[in-house]
């Protein structure tokens, strides 16, 4: 170890500095009274005040969160069901095909997904707005949840289910008392992944917003044409803090979940 360990620590520090420098830069200038990002002139909270005075922007922020929460919750439910279905497929080839189809949706470019949704929604006459954004966010989140839950299912020993059945558990009991508690970390991971995907998605959302309904990424992008005002910095700072809180929350949930088996309670629901 010794020298090598030190070197890798330095490397890690550099990587994190590079990752966080732009965010730190942005946060720093959100307090600049000068109104631009060259040279700090003085401390001000004016931009934060501006954010809270801009009702349209606040509505858009709320929209963004509503969509993120609803779409990730719904897609988690759908995704868990999908993962269970794929898990229970017997034939290897069908299983692989289903899994590949799922993965194709993850890697296919957002622009294409967005454009196809736009065409679909206008074709079947869904008005662009809340519904269209929600539906498309659910659609691109489901494959992510599937891929987070499926490994957990495969990791689970099949004898667990057999044992439960031997002890007289019905299918519903097996599902709610054995399978779901076992894959819970995967479900939460999927939920949080879906949440972040939905929060920062621009490409798909851009196509399916309409009629005054917009989300934050789309709004910031169209404002950026006039040069990003520092109120966007302020807003981004607030959102960054919120994500940090979310991640910390997720960390604690995970830790609690990890502690339970160690405490000897095992798989008690």
């Amino acid at each position, binding site marked *: 170890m010794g020298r090598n360990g030190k070197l890798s620590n330095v490397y890690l520090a550099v990587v994190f500095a590079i990752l966080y420098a732009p965010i730190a830069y942005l946060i720093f200038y959100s307090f600049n009274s000068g109104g*631009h990002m*060259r040279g700090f002139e003085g401390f001000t909270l004016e931009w934060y005040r501006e954010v809270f005075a801009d*009702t*349209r922007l*606040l*509505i858009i922020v*709320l*929209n963004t*969160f*509503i969509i993120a*929460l*609803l779409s*990730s*919750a719904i897609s*988690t*439910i759908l995704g868990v069901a999908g993962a269970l279905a794929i898990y229970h497929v017997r034939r290897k080839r069908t299983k692989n095909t289903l899994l590949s189809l799922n993965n194709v949706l993850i890697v296919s470019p957002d622009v294409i997904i967005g454009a196809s949704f*736009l*065409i679909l*929604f*206008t074709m079947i006459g869904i*008005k*662009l707005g809340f519904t*269209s954004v929600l539906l498309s966010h659910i659609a691109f989140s489901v494959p992510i949840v599937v891929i987070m839950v499926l490994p957990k299912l495969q990791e689970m020993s099949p004898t667990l289910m057999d044992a439960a059945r031997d002890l007289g558990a019905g299918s519903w009991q097996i599902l*709610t*008392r054995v399978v*779901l*508690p076992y894959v*819970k970390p995967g*479900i*939460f991971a999927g*939920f949080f992944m879906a949440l972040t995907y939905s929060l920062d998605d621009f490409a798909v959302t*851009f196509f399916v*917003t*309409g*009629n*005054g309904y*917009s989300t934050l990424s789309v*709004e910031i*992008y*169209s*404002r*950026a*044409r*006039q*040069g990003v*005002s520092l109120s966007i910095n302020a807003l981004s700072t607030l959102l960054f803090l919120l994500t940090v809180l979310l991640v910390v929350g997720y960390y604690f949930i995970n830790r609690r*979940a990890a502690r339970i088996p160690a405490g000897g309670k095992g798989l008690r*629901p």
Partner: protein
Amino acid sequence: MKQLVRTFALVFVAAFALMILASYLNKSQGYSGGNTLTIYNWGDYIDPDLLKEFEQESGMKVIYQTFDSNEAMLTKIEQGGTTFDVAIPSEYAISKMKEEKLLVPIDHNKLPNLKNIDSRFLNLNYDPDNQFSIPYFWGTVGIVYNPELVGGLTFDSWNDLWDPRLKNQILLLDGAREVIGMGLNSLGYSLNDTNEDHLQAALQKLSTLTPNVRAIVGDEIKMLLANEEAAVGLVWSGDASEIMDQNDKLDYKVPEEGSNLWFDSMVIPKTAKNVDGAHQFINFMLDPDHAARNAEYVGYSTPNAEALKQLPEDISEDERFYPDETLTSKLEVYNNLGKKMLSHYNDLFLEFKMHSK
């Protein structure tokens, strides 16, 4: 299991709580009435107070949406799905929309304030008789430069760009018509020239500019120039005013050989549901007082002659943004060259880009 159910119940409850809050905010804004007007505009391109005033005056609720490029706007309108009542594209997008029959003719009888528009900006090639579009803002293509770094050049002529002192100091915006147009202008030809010899000569001339060209960039050109990454930039006047707002050392000049004159104009898309309201809004924006306030807020040049009189002198007499008659007479609006010629322009521009370094 209990924890899962509890967590997801909590998520749904939180989402619905947020929804109630959002609809409350919406109501407090009065966005929920039936009589609405949907406006589709560039980001940050209107004084928000004017929208509020219009709502009070007309009793209509304004739904305001923004786009970032003509192409994005075109896609949304072509595809339908959203009913925009008023949109504000640039003139070349308007020609395209006209061709594709995406516009509703504008009834001039409903626009008593149309008389305020300077006649220089009416009845132009891209929309004769202003059948479909009413000018909103206008501007030019010119040169932003840093007087400290260009060694006394004043850019009265495009040819100043070729000065060897500017080696590796010029940023060009990434637009075929702007750059090829600059080449044509520097030779004294029209921006809309389709003569192959003239075009080749322009390309030749541009290729000798390459030692001076530092980069060909998109929207980030504003930031780069404001941060003094380069001494000179070829930009639209609207961008120039923003750059100069950020860095007052810089100056803007439209060379005397002539340049491009561009417009962003108000149109009524075919999908409009509230055509009457759209007319009311356009007329509202043509009011001298409103147009003046809007011009002051946005910082672009207003085509409204009456509004111009109301603007403070340091704006209205700024010849960089309101050039005098001699120069305006040399400014040209882009003609719709047709698909074939346009792709030829693009090819020439690509050739130029490939050879610059």
